[in-house]
């Protein structure tokens, strides 16, 4: 390695070396890791073994990276059906961390990490921050939520390992965020892009400018080029898109380098395929389809061909930054009905489960998403049925509050429930349109 591998401005962080591996070397590394992870999952995860047997394939059949296409897919409902620990490939005494994110109905999905998994996660987050031009001496305000959500701790340990100064402020409390941002002199911030827009607007109202802030690492929800331009102009920073999902590891699956032209995937740990979401057929680089990821080095919870439901394409051309890691296009939509609201995954089925629990039958409802002062707001409009209608205002208000509490409990974010008259919500061919997204994305 030349002298460019040093942790100083202008140099590359030593941990970023795998970003620049020659493709042939990378492929050899990937194949070796793929074979051992398939072996591990086959030996230790019953669901995966059964699916392989059904397809008549064995771990020995994986002789090339292309052979991955012969293996069965894993989907989000597999995590729900095996809740909480059914897909673990390590005994609990080797698991040092659990995280969880929302599932498709009431129960969350649980993910696990061994010590080695955490080391991998930290290393890809170091490479993430390094690709954003951050290094020792930077002050990173980490406004991702700390807790079961992977965003907070994932970014935290990566930033620390980078050698940067971490401000573990977690999410929310805008006044305090702005005070700390100004007084502690953060040079970088991590949060959801919609929260950054909120921060920028509140800062403008308060007459605060972010003089030292230069970089934003934004993710956990889809955003647009328009949002990027708005954030960059208003805050005077460079905004990077970071990609990740709990099922794979958390944040740190992919990151935009300084070119900000697609997200480099950390392919040495997460192997990407693009498939036709209808047929499951693997598509060539450049074609748009659903992103499927295989964890090449995960111990506690290997994911083989996990269907992310995110629609994107792999950029066939190499990046001018010199990284050999392939890039995916910014994710603009999903192939299922999952909504991402303030970084939280929300499924209409969760809302249905809550409405059903309160009312006993499922009323007609509609989810309306709006962006107010840069923040996502979720309103659930519920048609009043004769069964729940009362002539007493207090009883209807109580019903409304019960519905809000039930949805909040299942989904994990505050929602506003509005009672509406029957037959007011749009229906097409008898079926109601369940989601009205007015966030202009």
């Amino acid at each position, binding site marked *: 390695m030349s002298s460019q591998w040093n942790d100083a401005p202008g140099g590359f962080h030593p941990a970023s070396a795998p970003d620049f591996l020659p493709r042939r070397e990378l492929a050899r590394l990937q194949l070796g890791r793929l074979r051992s992870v398939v072996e591990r999952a086959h030996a230790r995860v019953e669901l995966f073994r059964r699916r392989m047997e059904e397809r008549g394939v064995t771990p020995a059949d994986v002789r090339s990276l292309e052979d991955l296409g012969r293996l069965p897919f894993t989907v989000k409902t597999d995590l729900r059906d095996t809740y909480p620990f059914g897909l673990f490939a390590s005994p609990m005494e080797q698991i040092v961390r659990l995280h969880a994110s929302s599932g498709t109905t009431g129960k969350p999905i649980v993910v696990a990490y061994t010590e080695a998994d955490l080391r991998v996660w930290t290393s890809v987050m170091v490479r993430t921050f390094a690709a954003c031009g951050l290094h020792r001496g930077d002050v990173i305000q980490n406004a991702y939520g700390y807790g079961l959500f992977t965003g907070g701790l994932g970014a935290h340990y990566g930033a620390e390992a980078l050698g940067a100064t971490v401000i573990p402020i977690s999410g929310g409390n805008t006044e305090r965020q702005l005070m700390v941002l100004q007084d502690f002199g953060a040079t970088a911030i991590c949060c959801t892009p919609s929260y950054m827009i909120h921060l920028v607007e509140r800062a403008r109202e308060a007459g605060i400018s972010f003089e030292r802030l230069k970089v934003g690492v934004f993710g956990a929800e889809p955003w647009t080029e328009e949002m990027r331009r708005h954030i960059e102009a208003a805050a005077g920073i460079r905004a990077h898109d970071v990609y990740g999902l709990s099922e794979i590891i958390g944040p740190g699956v992919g990151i935009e380098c300084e070119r900000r032209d697609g997200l480099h995937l950390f392919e040495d740990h997460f192997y990407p395929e693009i498939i036709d979401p209808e047929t499951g057929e693997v598509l060539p680089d450049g074609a748009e389809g659903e992103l499927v990821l295989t964890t090449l080095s995960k111990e506690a919870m290997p994911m083989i061909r996990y269907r992310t439901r995110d629609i994107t394409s792999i950029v066939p051309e190499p990046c001018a930054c010199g990284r050999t890691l392939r890039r995916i296009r910014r994710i603009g939509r999903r192939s299922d009905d999952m909504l991402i609201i303030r970084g939280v995954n929300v499924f209409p089925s969760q809302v249905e489960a809550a409405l059903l629990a309160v009312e006993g039958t499922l009323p007609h409802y509609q989810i309306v998403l709006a962006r107010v002062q840069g923040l996502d707001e979720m309103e659930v409009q519920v048609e009043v049925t004769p069964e729940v*209608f009362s002539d007493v*205002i207090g009883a209807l208000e109580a019903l409304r509050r019960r519905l809000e509490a039930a949805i909040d409990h299942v989904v994990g974010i505050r929602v506003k429930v509005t*009672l509406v008259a*029957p*037959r007011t919500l749009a229906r097409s061919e008898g079926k109601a349109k369940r989601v009205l997204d007015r966030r202009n994305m």
Partner: protein
Amino acid sequence: MKIRQLSVFLENRPGQLRFPCKALGDAGIDIVTMSLADTAQFGILRLVVKEWERAKSVLEAAGVVVNVTEVLAVDVPDRPGGLAAVLEAFEQAGVGVEYMYPSASRERGRHATLLFRLEDPDRAEKLLEAAGVKLVGPAELFARS
């Protein structure tokens, strides 16, 4: 002696109040009296009509959510302290009031007729009669309008 009251759910937007009233008008149903309760989000229109069953089917056919409850009509002496005296009788009988509104039909100069939605109408009716409160039945109320 109890009177059937229809309640209708209304959203807070223009045209919502007119819609059920027009449906009843088109069906030739006369509204005896009514009251509107509102919140920031929605309103509840409470109606007393002569043919409550027909009114209910007309409204339901028009796609309106209708709820039927029983209210008591009470003649209150039209003089200072008249209402307070009646409410005192309620209080002594331990009858809780959910809400109340005046009837549009009244015997001018003698009584005001008020409609009370009470917590337990059956029990309230017995207690109030025993306490000497003058309850007005549907026939009498409708005859005045």
